[in-house]
């Protein structure tokens, strides 16, 4: 029984991290048609900001805020300078955001150095959950991811802003004729996506290390989740849970490499099985 509870919690917390990263990525990909190869670097910016905030003595919540803000600012700048020229072409977004990611990584390396930064755990220790001692921080992650998804889904589905965003996603030109300024909405959405990345960066910091090229390790799993989720933001949650379940259980019972390949096979099956109409977004 303990093993089961432990596994369930592990899967949920893995899914929590993965889904938060995938959320930002999925928003730009599905709502704006941007393949953002710099998403991992926005995470990195967030993580750095949080570490530096911690270093000058700010408490963790402020560090979290600093990470989100830093990534949002960089994201907004990137949108204004580059990304808004890429909406017409998902292919071009590959080159543009690839260049952006190199600029961010190398920029940080040159100015702040290559070494690992230490991001300390704001909630050390473990508490008992159904008789199993489980790290508090992991539980915080699960809660944070749940709240975050709730907020985003409410924003998209129950506010005028969300309606506008979905309208622009479905047909930017048409939305413009209805009086929606799609360029400003795109800025908002991209900045929000970068802020989410920053948040994810702050959250994963204490689980690993903070370094200029940290983003790459996270981004591919997130991409696979976005692929499996298809056109839906809500489906990111089951997709993340599916991936985490397969990865955790197969790692536990068989082998991590088999687990990784199994996840990729699922992604392939989904791509082959579910044909979707481009531009159609269900939330």
């Amino acid at each position, binding site marked *: 029984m303990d093993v089961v509870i432990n596994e369930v919690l*592990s899967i949920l917390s893995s899914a929590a991290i993965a889904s938060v990263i995938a959320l930002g990525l999925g928003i730009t990909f599905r709502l704006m048609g941007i393949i953002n190869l710099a998403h991992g670097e926005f995470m990195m910016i967030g993580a750095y900001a949080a570490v530096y905030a911690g270093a000058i003595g700010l408490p963790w919540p402020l560090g979290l805020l600093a990470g989100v803000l830093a990534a949002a600012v960089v994201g907004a700048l990137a949108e204004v300078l580059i990304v808004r020229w890429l909406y017409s072409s998902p292919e071009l977004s590959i080159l543009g955001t690839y260049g952006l990611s190199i600029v961010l990584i190398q920029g940080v390396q040159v100015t702040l150095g290559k070494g*690992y930064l230490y991001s300390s755990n704001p909630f050390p220790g473990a508490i008992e959950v159904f008789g199993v001692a489980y*790290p508090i921080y992991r539980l915080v992650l699960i809660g944070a991811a749940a709240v975050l998804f709730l907020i985003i889904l409410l924003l998209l589905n129950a506010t005028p802003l969300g309606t506008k965003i979905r309208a622009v996603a479905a047909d930017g030109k048409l939305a413009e004729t209805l009086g929606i300024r799609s360029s400003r909405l795109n800025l908002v959405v991209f900045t929000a996506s970068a802020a989410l990345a920053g948040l994810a960066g702050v959250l994963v910091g204490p*689980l690993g290390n903070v370094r200029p090229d940290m983003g790459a390790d996270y981004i591919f799993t997130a991409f696979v989740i976005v692929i499996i989720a298809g056109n839906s933001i809500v489906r990111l949650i089951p997709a993340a849970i599916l991936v985490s379940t397969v990865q955790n259980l197969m790692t536990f019972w068989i082998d991590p490499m088999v687990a990784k390949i199994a996840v990729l096979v699922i992604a392939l099956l989904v791509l082959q099985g579910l044909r979707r109409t481009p531009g159609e977004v269900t939330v």
Partner: protein
Amino acid sequence: MQIKPRWSVPLAAATAAALLFGMSACSQEPGGGSEAPSGDAGALKIGLTVDLSGVGSMIGTPGKMVAELAVEEINAAGGVNGQQLELVVADNGGLPQNTKTAATRLVESDQVAALFAPVDSASRDAAMPTVVDADIPFFYPTLTEGQVCAPYLFSTANTPQQQLQETIPVVQELEGKTKWFLIGNDYVYPRTSLEAAREFIEAAGGEVVGEEYVPLGTTDFQAVISQIRSSDAELLLPVVVGADTVAFEKQAYDAGIGANVLPRLTISYDDNTMAALGQDIAQNMYVGMGYDMDLDTPENRAFVEAYRAKFGDSAPAVTAYSIYVYATIKAWADAVTTAGSTALADVAEAIVGQVNTTPAGEVTILDNRYAQESIHLIKYVEGGEKEFVQTFDNVIPAETCSVS
């Protein structure tokens, strides 16, 4: 859009002309055209290929620094056979293909007399054909799984067998525990290391209760941590490398199986790793390695002093991954002096069996081109302090292969 490729013509001609001009200019660089680098006028060149820009730059940068220091010291002492040494450095950017390119440039354009490459094993293998063609000694002065032997390949740093053979029984005895869990990244170095570990553990009366390999670049170690927890392991032997180390150790610590609960013996965590982990997580870890900057020997004190004098206090820590670059360049210089020649056969004959006193202790290169050297068992204790538990001198590298 319009694709009428006839514009290709003048462009192609221009490019070809530019390339032709550029390359003929390049090939006339000093040194590029000169024949055998002998005589009093020309300096004797040695090549170093390291990773200065990629992920391996944490090893590459101090590697380059200690190489510069070694060359400076050799030249200050009169050079090699009356000739001054010149170090030519090529960045490999962390990629095997680039290492091949870098090695080719060093060998062909710079005509280096020996090549030193503290790089990963894939990059070493990539450079090998070039070195064979050039018929020069190839020094591989960083931690290696061994298993590759060639007359021209000198692997002078520790092998996992050396690091584990003596340290496993001592750790078992000190901790009074015998049940091990082995975990590593999924590639040749950890696999070879843990294979050797299993042998030594069983020889020392211990038991392996679990073994797991995770892909490089893993960020989430929960499943593996669950596995470790559900085994009845008392000791952990992690050969997790690079950034994965920090992720694994932090997550394990949070999950209640940090080194305070489950003591570690590691062969890959150097000073930089420990700094990245922080003192709480590092506490109670045993490290079996050939070098540490805090070693209290006269040779090491002199080395550290010179290193700090040249590069300052903020220079990166020198570890077992990079110290053998320094030691090996010096050993090579001594061998060339003894042999009076830089030819591979002469250098090989002189350097095998030559006893080198280095900051890492005595290093002797054996017949199979691996080195017999000292291994230090270090324990990280409270407050980030290090305790030098024991030093094993003249540890013989396992005969995993031989030079025929």
